[in-house]
């Protein structure tokens, strides 16, 4: 059975995706918009299921899996080669799980697009997007990889600007495609450097030939790759496309982008820094750690400043990528010091947080999407009281919020615990420079957890609790059954990945130790065996919590009389409460913003209008504008662009338009070349 899946699952998946893409275009062309949407999503689901069956059976039954395939077509033969190792299988699993949930969720939401947009195109790019993500993971060849990477970028670009009638969506898409092209340029540079020394685009050749590369070029290749991948992963300061593009896309696409697309960059980082360059200098690990620390703490702070629910979630993706990088950087450092065991454990932490973030971020984006769909706005200040109108969606969002805040008993806690363990281990055993960087990483992780909890109290409270703040949430309705299925699947997985950490961590440990270049681990230890002697066990914690709840119930049942409960108005000190008296999302996080004003530089102008200019006793209106400057745009990007423009202006001087000048250029070039060749 498993063998069957391993042999045919992947091809079935690609077949489904291709079929879905073509069918949706054809149906769209024949004005069967609705059908095209449904068919494309159904086929995407089917393909994702096939890919999932393939990857799961590969993960469980493929020992040291290395599954090759190549097209025996002339020139293509050594250009299109696929290889599925256990790491790739893991990422296929992550991608396909989220893809299934997102496709089921999205298959219901086409009514608001009917008539205004071409649904056929959407289905085409949607399938292309998922397929290219899978292809990125299994490509065993730089050429094919870059092809798939580009396809992923282009498809997601068209999905982002799908609602192109909204002005800012187009701008967001433009920013997104710009930065992703920039990243591709750097990646291409990295592969060129590798090609220069390995003489091949093939990953297997590159893998074996990296050892013989001169150190300088190794580091150049790694630097180029790091910049290129960081721009896709949304590492600060290359994150600016993320909070623009994710809100612009339809919700299930943002779930895919934020949940898994940025993870492909993590996958490629693992390939480069651990698989290709096992001998990378440990400072690379420390650099990744530093980037992770900065991204996590700044990402969550920026998330706190947001009141657009999808932008908030997008900034949390930045934060969680930071947390993943903390684990990844730690593991690279350990590996480069030859501490294979700790390295594998830290990699387990990174991978565990990768899958966790994919699950709960997708869940949050989907539930936020159904809220946006129900209310028609993304502004949290206009929500409120939705828990009564959409109880199930709010429960889903709550699960996601508790999980992403890293609170037990859900999955987020497990990976944060593992990351903490690897950081503390590094603090304990590494040389002093590494110790200090690990300390910084641990500090940022410690504060990130609490700030994330604060941010999601704000998000959940402002969205679902208390009374409605605006008229929009008055006529909100519960999400459809399909959407519920999609969300419920992810919520269930969030719980399972919390409870089942004992079974999942060892599987990830096999991935962590699967890189043959490192001393093969004979007996894989339990990564949940942390700093101390007692292993961490989530089931015990859950049992304790449940027992505590039961005990509480018993205490109340025993000692409390049978008191009657009277429903009355909220205690309002005599004045009638209006929605404006509730705390707003902005007000909730204002204190934290002011505490971190050194980092965020908040602005506020107060303007008062008086009834009569002479006596300043009676104010007519008083307005306070709280603002946050986009520091990265102002401090980093604008100066760079200005520099480039000035350079361009200089360069234009040589463009006289006079033919003789150009001839002169040619002449001079010729002379220079001759001198250089015959010197």
């Amino acid at each position, binding site marked *: 059975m498993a063998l069957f899946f391993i042999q045919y699952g992947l091809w079935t998946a690609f077949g489904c995706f291709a079929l879905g893409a073509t069918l949706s275009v054809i149906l769209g062309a024949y004005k069967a918009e609705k059908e095209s949407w449904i068919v494309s999503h159904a086929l995407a689901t089917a393909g994702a299921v096939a890919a999932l069956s393939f990857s799961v059976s590969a993960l469980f039954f493929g020992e040291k899996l290395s599954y090759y395939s190549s097209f025996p077509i002339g020139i293509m033969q050594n250009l299109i080669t696929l290889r599925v190792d256990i790491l790739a299988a893991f990422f296929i699993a992550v991608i396909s799980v989220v893809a299934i949930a997102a496709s089921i969720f999205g298959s219901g939401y086409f009514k608001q697009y009917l008539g205004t947009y071409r649904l056929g195109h959407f289905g085409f790019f949607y399938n292309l997007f998922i397929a290219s993500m899978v292809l990125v993971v299994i490509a065993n060849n730089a050429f094919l990889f870059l092809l798939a990477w580009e396809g992923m970028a282009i498809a997601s670009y068209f999905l982002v600007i799908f609602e192109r009638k909204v002005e800012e969506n187009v701008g967001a898409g433009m920013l997104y495609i710009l930065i992703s092209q920039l990243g591709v340029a750097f990646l291409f540079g990295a592969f060129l450097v590798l090609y220069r020394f390995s003489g091949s685009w093939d990953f297997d050749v590159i893998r074996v030939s990296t050892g013989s590369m001169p150190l300088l070029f190794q580091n150049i290749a790694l630097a180029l790759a790091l910049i290129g991948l960081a721009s896709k992963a949304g590492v600060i300061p290359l994150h600016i496309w993320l909070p623009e593009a994710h809100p612009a896309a339809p919700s299930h696409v943002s779930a895919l982008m934020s949940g898994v697309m940025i993870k492909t960059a993590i996958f490629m980082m693992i390939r480069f820094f651990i698989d290709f360059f096992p001998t990378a200098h440990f400072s690379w690990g420390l650099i990744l750690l530093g980037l992770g620390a900065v991204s996590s703490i700044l990402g969550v702070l920026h998330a706190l400043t947001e009141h657009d629910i999808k932008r908030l979630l997008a900034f949390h993706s930045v934060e969680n990528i930071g947390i993943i990088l903390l684990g990844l950087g730690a593991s690279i450092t350990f590996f480069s010091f030859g501490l294979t065991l700790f390295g594998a454990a830290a990699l387990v932490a990174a991978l565990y947080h990768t899958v966790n973030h994919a699950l709960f971020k997708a869940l949050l984006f989907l539930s936020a999407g159904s809220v946006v769909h129900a209310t028609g706005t993304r502004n949290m200040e206009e929500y409120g*009281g939705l*828990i*009564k109108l959409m109880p199930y969606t709010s429960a889903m969002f709550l699960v996601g919020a508790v999980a992403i805040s*890293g*609170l*037990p008993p859900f999955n987020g806690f497990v990976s944060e615990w593992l990351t*903490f363990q690897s950081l*503390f281990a590094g*603090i*304990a055993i590494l040389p002093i420079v590494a*110790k200090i960087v690990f*300390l910084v990483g*641990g500090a940022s992780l*410690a*504060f990130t957890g*609490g*700030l994330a*909890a*604060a941010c999601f*109290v*704000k998000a959940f*409270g402002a969205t*679902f*609790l*208390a*009374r409605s703040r605006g008229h929009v949430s008055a006529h909100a309705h519960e999400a459809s059954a399909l959407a519920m299925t999609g969300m419920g699947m992810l919520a269930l997985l969030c719980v399972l990945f919390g409870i089942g950490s004992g079974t999942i961590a060892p599987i990830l440990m096999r991935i962590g130790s699967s890189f043959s270049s490192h001393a093969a681990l004979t007996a894989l230890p339990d990564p949940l065996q942390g*700093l*101390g*002697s*007692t292993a*961490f066990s989530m089931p*015990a914690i859950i049992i*304790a*919590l449940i*027992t*505590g709840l039961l*005990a*509480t*119930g018993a205490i*109340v049942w025993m*000692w*409390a*009389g049978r*008191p*009657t*409960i*009277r*429903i*009355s*108005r*909220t*205690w309002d000190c005599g004045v009638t409460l209006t929605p404006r*008296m*509730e*705390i707003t999302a902005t*007000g*909730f996080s204002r*204190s*934290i913003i002011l*505490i971190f004003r050194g980092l965020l530089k908040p602005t506020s102008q107060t303007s008062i209008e008086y009834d009569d200019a002479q006596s300043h006793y009676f104010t007519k209106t008083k307005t306070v504008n709280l603002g946050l400057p986009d520091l990265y745009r102002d401090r980093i990007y604008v100066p760079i662009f200005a520099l480039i423009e000035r350079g361009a202006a200089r360069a234009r001087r040589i463009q006289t338009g006079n033919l003789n000048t150009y001839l002169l250029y040619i002449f001079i070039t010729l002379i220079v070349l001759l001198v250089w060749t015959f010197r």
Partner: protein
Amino acid sequence: MESVIYILTIIGIPLLSPAVLGLIRKMKALMQSRHGASIFQPYLDLAKLFQKNEVISEDASWIFTFAPYIVFGSTLAIAWGIPLLGTVAALPATGDFLVFVYLIALGTFFLALAGMDTGGGFGGFGSSREMTFAALTEGGLIFSLAGVALMTGASTFAGMMSALQAAPLFAYLPLSLSGAAFFLALLSENARYPVDNPATHLELTMVHEAMILEYSGKRLALMEWAAGNKLLMFIVIFANIFVPWSPAALGTSAVAALVVLFAKITIIAGTIALIESTMSKFRFFRVPDLLFTSFVLGVISIVIIVL
């Protein structure tokens, strides 16, 4: 004997916590040259509240009605991970210090949600302030305990205690630094001076009280009891780990251990009472200084330990 100790670790903290609250109040009263209520007053208050009817806001959702159970239940779950006498904990799994910190955070999370749930003005800013302080306290809390964990090589409280029996004299420098950090975190987490005023009547100075303002009857009782449990848990951890002569070091005599533990609890409670009657509450934006101070103290102790 063992079984007695075991049962005590299960029921000890919820059983004793009201008495500790009463003890602190009594000491404060004495500092104000009053007599004050008896130490057992909180038991009477809880008993009364359990008997009273409830009034619940019409805007509240299931979060509001369910939160007290989560808050109280989580404190029970944490309490079972903390060894009272000897180094035996009822449930070592929840005694891992990160699990401890994040279970505390779970309770705070739902407490803050409940505060926002009724849509009153007080609850909203109460939970905003609470989450601000909780977020900034987490650093100090984690790093103060991580120092001990790195020094002893154990991550559970029981392990730390058994390892600290043979602590060299020099170990008490980092221990005292971590202890200072932990004590500041204790004050902030339990809504004590100079962070919060536990006995305030002014809505503007309320943080923890503002969130439970809407509760009445048995749910209020659960909330206040949970706050007491939390305080006692922090005090016990401080007494057993950061103060010398931990019960483990006293050998097998459980009675002696009990006496020493009670003495320590009394002294720490007295310190809290002393702080509350001699200090003034900090301005809101000066509290972060305190919390970052606790965090940095933890970092310094870790530096001394690992370098």
